[in-house]
């Protein structure tokens, strides 16, 4: 299931508004929790929390335990795991906190997706990770959350008490994929740089194909046309395609 198919038009617009805002202009923040239920088998859930209402300008309570308890109050773990319950509860919570429920709906749907869709949900969470401002991540450090749970009377933390936070502090998704060492290097930039020095004015603005020794193969104003010719001639592999800087501008 793809991202657009999951959301309706209104939600897509809301998410687009969220994602296209510059970081300094963003008024909604997103956070992630990892929860586990020791009495059930390896239950893990992700909760993405909006922190601020963009239209009303009011802050949603930032105390994670309030969300935690609101999400799970008087519910069993199995109920909590239900995507339908999560989405419904999340929407109700937002409605009660401020009139602008749009972001809550979007995020609620995404929570549903995360819990119910496996890999597809993870992809959506990955998209939202790119929006996160992790400067305040320490607020949600598992240790801080555990401290709150430990200091809250048992009768006030029915279902939440059964949940413990596990794992390390949240990290931006961008930190997870690392670079890998690939194959041994071949070719060199030096002959290409030499070609540029000698020919950049003659080929300004055009796409050129150079082999690894800096030998000129072909040129065109269209990258696609140049590429098609090289492919047809069996010359594309290892060739450098680049557009020569246009010195006229």
């Amino acid at each position, binding site marked *: 299931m793809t991202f657009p198919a999951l959301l309706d038009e209104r939600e897509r617009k809301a998410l687009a508004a969220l*994602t296209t805002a510059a970081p300094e202009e963003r008024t909604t923040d997103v956070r992630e929790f990892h929860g586990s239920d020791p009495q059930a088998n390896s239950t893990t859930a992700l909760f993405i929390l909006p922190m601020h209402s963009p239209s009303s300008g009011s802050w949603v309570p930032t105390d994670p335990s309030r969300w935690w308890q609101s999400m799970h109050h008087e519910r069993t773990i199995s109920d909590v795991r239900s995507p339908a319950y999560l989405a419904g509860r999340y929407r109700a919570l937002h409605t009660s906190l401020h009139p602008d429920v749009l972001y809550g709906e979007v995020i609620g749907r995404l929570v549903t997706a995360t819990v119910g869709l496996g890999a597809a949900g993870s992809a959506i969470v990955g998209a939202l990770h790119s929006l996160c401002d992790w400067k305040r991540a320490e607020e949600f450090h598992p240790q801080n959350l555990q401290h709150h749970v430990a200091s809250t009377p048992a009768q006030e933390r029915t279902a939440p008490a059964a949940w413990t936070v596990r794992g390390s502090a949240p990290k931006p998704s961008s930190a997870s994929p690392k*670079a*890998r060492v690939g194959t041994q290097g071949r070719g060199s930039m030096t002959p290409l740089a030499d070609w540029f020095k000698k020919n950049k004015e003659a080929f300004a603005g055009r796409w050129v194909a150079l082999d690894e020794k800096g030998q000129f193969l072909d040129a065109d104003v269209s990258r696609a046309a140049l590429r098609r010719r090289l492919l047809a001639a069996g010359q594309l*592999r290892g060739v450098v*395609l680049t557009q020569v800087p246009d010195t006229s501008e």
Partner: protein
Amino acid sequence: MLVLQDAGGHTPWSQGAAGFISAPHGNHRYFIGVRCQLGSQLNEEIAQLDTAAEWSVIGPDVAEELEDDLGDELGHIQMRTSRGLIVGPLRRLRIALLADEGMGNNVDVEATVLVAADWAGPVMLGFKGFLERLRIGIDPGASAVDEPRVYFGSYTD
């Protein structure tokens, strides 16, 4: 290969290195133009390595060639550039920084790039989703004996 020396001893810092092209004139300003390979493409590119660019960017021509390599859309963003505001989806794409012969190994990065339909510039390698996922050092080759060179490596943890 660069080696990091600290109290714990010596550890490899980079696995590959390559020269870069610098043509600071005109429309496509290759301040630091590096060789790279995008996805499964047969050919190589010269991409602009720009530590000040928020995201890496590819234009429509390159995106069309790489359609099978690009991951699902991860949401749309807009980005301010020297050529104005550009918009488009973020998508996953494997990018290999290519080492020169005899200068170690290439480094592959599972990058996230902005696919901008109205981007007419060169492939840009920016910070988020690319540079933040590898180690990179730049030697401008300012002395008489040094060549301009970028050093790159993966994290070992």
